[in-house]
């Protein structure tokens, strides 16, 4: 055996790492990760109103316990040479040669997500103790949140696509329940339905991918599929890539399945923070990064992922720039940032690490931004229109500082997180995918400028400038139960990027899962500098438009782009005309066909029989001579038959 070096060594490590070993030591208890939040959810939801008094405490304790175990698991994994450990729980399906187990896979990628979900999740759930204090259904809220945490953990812990799909559906359900949490609001119910239905379209893609895996490889486990994909033929891998992309688009609100994310802001702010910023919408990125051996074989799918990401980051940025509702603007921002993550994923081995890094950092600062906005909404008496904010920095100081730190992180100012994690992706565009890569890279640069623009707009409209409040507004700082999580998240926003990227820490950590990128950049690159300059330009432009001149209380008409952006760039109109109307026509056609065609057939048959029998009964005319005639005719026929047989 020759000694392997460099890339070959990395590939060998990667190939070897596709096999897993059974869990040992503390990792044998990894089922606790699922058990804690699931237990909380069951107790709170089944227990009902009896648990109202202490429900929130249980609801907080369970994710925190899961986080504690997650940390233990992380340090155990660090100390272990076998970085991919599989904890077998039970055999789910065993049919013929097909087997699907519920196994929990603890490996570097899943541990990142576990820490993110339980850590940021715990902080947000603690925050919601204060945010939902006045709500009579608070206990149910915590039940749903725990259900979500359990499902999301199942999603990232699964070691085969089928169990991943179970978690996938679980988070979809939790999202539906939480978006429509305030059931008395019609808009919330409609938004929840919309989210579920659009997600379903994406789920169809994931389902078909699982079917294809089963038919092509006979297995749906990660190790099984990843071992067979290189030999499976190009068509299968490309199809899988595109189908997985479709699934990821649905869950991560990428174009063309992006229309649900802005409406999902109908849910309470902690929901928006946890589900629609930090975790659920990143499940698509997880799926694609996990499936990197499949993507390694199909450059077409990777290009498609990169294109989708690029289109979405511009899409989200444009929408975010025109929205006056603070949460909707942040939702557009989320859409755009996840577009960056997809762009990173589409770059191949170069970009997986940075996509995950961006995902983790984004979890911190976007959650921080959402929690901050929740604090503002809470302080401004549930007012969400930024045109009615202004000059709040004196009144909500802690929120202002945390919000500001997160703001600096997101626009990519060094040394905050965004700078470290976003610029490598932009740099990677120019080196990958040839000429198309330049287009992607330029769009990403424009996106960076847009990000700075709309975030600065948000800052200026909310915290600075003249006070445009309603008469009865009394802005006040939030209680400590709400501010402490924001503080912790702010610390993360500040330091996460540097922590992950410097010394290639995350890269080395994730190497067994995603491989090693071929070429390593420093973290000060040309693209990075250009991006920084564009960000400053965006800040400046926003200050010109919103800082120097007073913000009008009523939104001005704006040019056609602004009008379009306010209407979500006609996403809903597009869906309606292309999908909903034809669907309705199809159903009407089916109903028509059923009524006229099928019923007509059945009724015609009945009428035919009735008519025929009506005719035939007239043979019984009561005349003996007619009957005698038929007897004679019958006798003639019989004789004829006899003769025919005998002659």
């Amino acid at each position, binding site marked *: 055996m020759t000694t392997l070096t460099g890339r070959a060594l990395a590939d060998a490590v990667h190939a070897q790492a596709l096999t897993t070993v059974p869990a040992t030591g503390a990792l044998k208890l990894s089922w606790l990760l699922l058990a804690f939040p699931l237990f909380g959810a069951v107790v709170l939801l089944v227990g009902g109103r009896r648990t109202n008094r202490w429900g929130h405490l249980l609801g907080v304790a369970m994710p925190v316990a899961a986080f504690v175990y997650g940390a233990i698991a992380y340090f155990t994994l660090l100390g272990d040479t076998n970085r991919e450990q599989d904890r077998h729980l039970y055999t789910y399906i065993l049919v013929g040669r097909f087997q699907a187990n519920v196994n929990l896979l603890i490996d570097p990628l899943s541990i990142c997500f576990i820490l993110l979900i339980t850590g940021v999740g715990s902080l947000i759930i603690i925050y919601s103790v204060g945010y939902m204090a006045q709500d009579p259904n608070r206990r149910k809220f915590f039940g749903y949140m725990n259900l979500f945490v359990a499902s999301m953990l199942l999603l990232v812990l699964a070691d085969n696509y089928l169990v991943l799909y179970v978690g996938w559906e679980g988070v979809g359900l939790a999202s539906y329940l939480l978006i429509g949490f305030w059931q008395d609001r019609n808009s919330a119910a409609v938004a929840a339905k919309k989210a579920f239905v659009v997600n379903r379209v994406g789920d169809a893609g994931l389902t078909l991918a699982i079917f294809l895996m089963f038919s092509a490889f006979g297995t749906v486990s990660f190790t099984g599929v990843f071992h067979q994909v290189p030999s499976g033929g190009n068509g299968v891998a490309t199809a899988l890539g595109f189908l997985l992309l479709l699934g990821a688009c649905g869950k991560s609100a990428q174009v063309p399945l992006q229309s649900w994310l802005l409406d999902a802001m109908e849910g309470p702010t902690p929901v928006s923070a946890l589900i629609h910023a930090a975790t659920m919408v990143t499940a698509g990125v997880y799926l694609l990064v996990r499936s990197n051996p499949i993507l390694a074989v199909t450059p077409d799918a990777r290009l498609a992922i990169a294109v989708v990401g690029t289109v979405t980051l511009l899409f989200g940025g444009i929408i975010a720039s025109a929205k006056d509702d603070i949460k909707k603007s942040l939702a557009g921002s989320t859409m755009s940032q996840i577009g960056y993550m997809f762009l990173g994923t589409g770059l191949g081995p170069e970009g997986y690490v940075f996509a995950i890094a961006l995902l983790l950092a984004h979890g911190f600062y976007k959650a921080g931004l959402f929690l901050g906005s929740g604090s503002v909404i809470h302080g401004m008496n549930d007012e969400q229109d930024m045109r009615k904010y202004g000059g709040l920095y004196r009144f909500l100081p802690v929120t202002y500082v945390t919000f500001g730190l997160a703001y600096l992180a997101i626009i990519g100012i060094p040394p905050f997180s965004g700078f470290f994690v976003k610029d490598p992706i932009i740099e990677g565009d120019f080196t990958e995918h040839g000429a198309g890569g330049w287009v992607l890279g330029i769009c990403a640069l424009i996106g960076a400028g847009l990000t700075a623009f709309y975030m600065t707009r948000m800052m200026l409209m909310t915290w600075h400038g003249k006070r445009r409040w309603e008469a009865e507004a009394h802005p006040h700082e939030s209680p400590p139960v709400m501010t402490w999580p924001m503080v912790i998240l702010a610390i993360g926003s500040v330091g996460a990027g540097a922590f992950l990227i410097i010394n290639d820490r995350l890269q080395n950590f994730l190497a067994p899962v995603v491989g090693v990128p071929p070429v390593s950049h420093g973290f000060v690159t040309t693209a990075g500098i250009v991006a920084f300059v564009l960000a400053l330009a965006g800040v400046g432009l926003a200050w010109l438009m919103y800082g120097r001149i007073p913000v009008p209380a009523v939104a001005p008409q704006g040019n056609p782009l602004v009008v379009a952006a306010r209407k979500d760039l006609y996403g809903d109109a597009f869906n309606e005309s292309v999908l909903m109307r034809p669907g309705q026509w199809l159903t009407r056609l089916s109903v028509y066909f059923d009524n006229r065609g099928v019923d007509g057939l059945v009724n015609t048959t009945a009428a035919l029989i009735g008519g025929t029998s009506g005719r035939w009964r007239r043979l019984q*005319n009561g005349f003996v001579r007619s009957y005698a005639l038929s007897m*004679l*005719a019958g006798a003639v026929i019989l004789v004829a038959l006899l*003769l025919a047989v*005998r002659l």
Partner: protein
Amino acid sequence: MTHVLAAGTNTDSIAVESVFWILAVAAVAAALAMILVPRAVHCALMLAVVMLCLATMYAMQGAPFLAFVQIIVYTGAVLMLFLFVLMLIGISSADSIVETIRGQRQAAGLAAIGLLILLILGIGHAALGPATLSKTAGGPGNLTGIATLIFTTYVFPFEVTGALLITAAVGAMVLAHRERATPRPTQRELAARRLASGHLAPDPSPGVYALHDSADRPALLPDGTTSEVSVSSVLSPRDPADERRFVPPEETLEITAESGEWEPSPSGKADS
């Protein structure tokens, strides 16, 4: 003659052949006439002709017993029974020529022709051998042979047929029986009814006041006009205009309740 006819072999004499053809033609003609003539009595007579022809043919084929049974039982008893019932039911009822059921005649003709062709075809193909001499030709004779067969081989059908005859007779009696709805009135009841009605003497029988004693004279209605239906349709009623109208007498004599004297009746009408 019977022997000559009964000894029929393959080579029949000219006489036998010509007799057969004459009888055959007569039978077919009579049968056709039977189904075509409108009057029922004529049909019966034609049937009689057919039966007699057939009886002769039986005799020609060496079945003398059967021939006589045909004449005595079939023609003489069964056909006479037909005529008897005809007389009871409707000697005057003539079938109208118009066919009420659409297409019945055409269909019947078609089916009949079809059947004829098929059966003739069947016969033509069948291996019908020549006539063989009867085994009992010189032996016990036709009647003894039949009797032997009836009481040995066919004794069971014979017994069953006997039961059938009894059943038929009983059935006929049952069908002809009329159940009285009310008990039969006794003579005393009849007399009491007659007294109560005031109509003591029986009415004059039909024709008492008739001037003519002829079946083709129509009867008189109470008002003196003639009744057309009283003449059988097989007869043509004599024109009543030829005759004097019957003029009832000026008065009739009647016993009234009070006087006990014969007095003229106020109506001046004849008792009907």
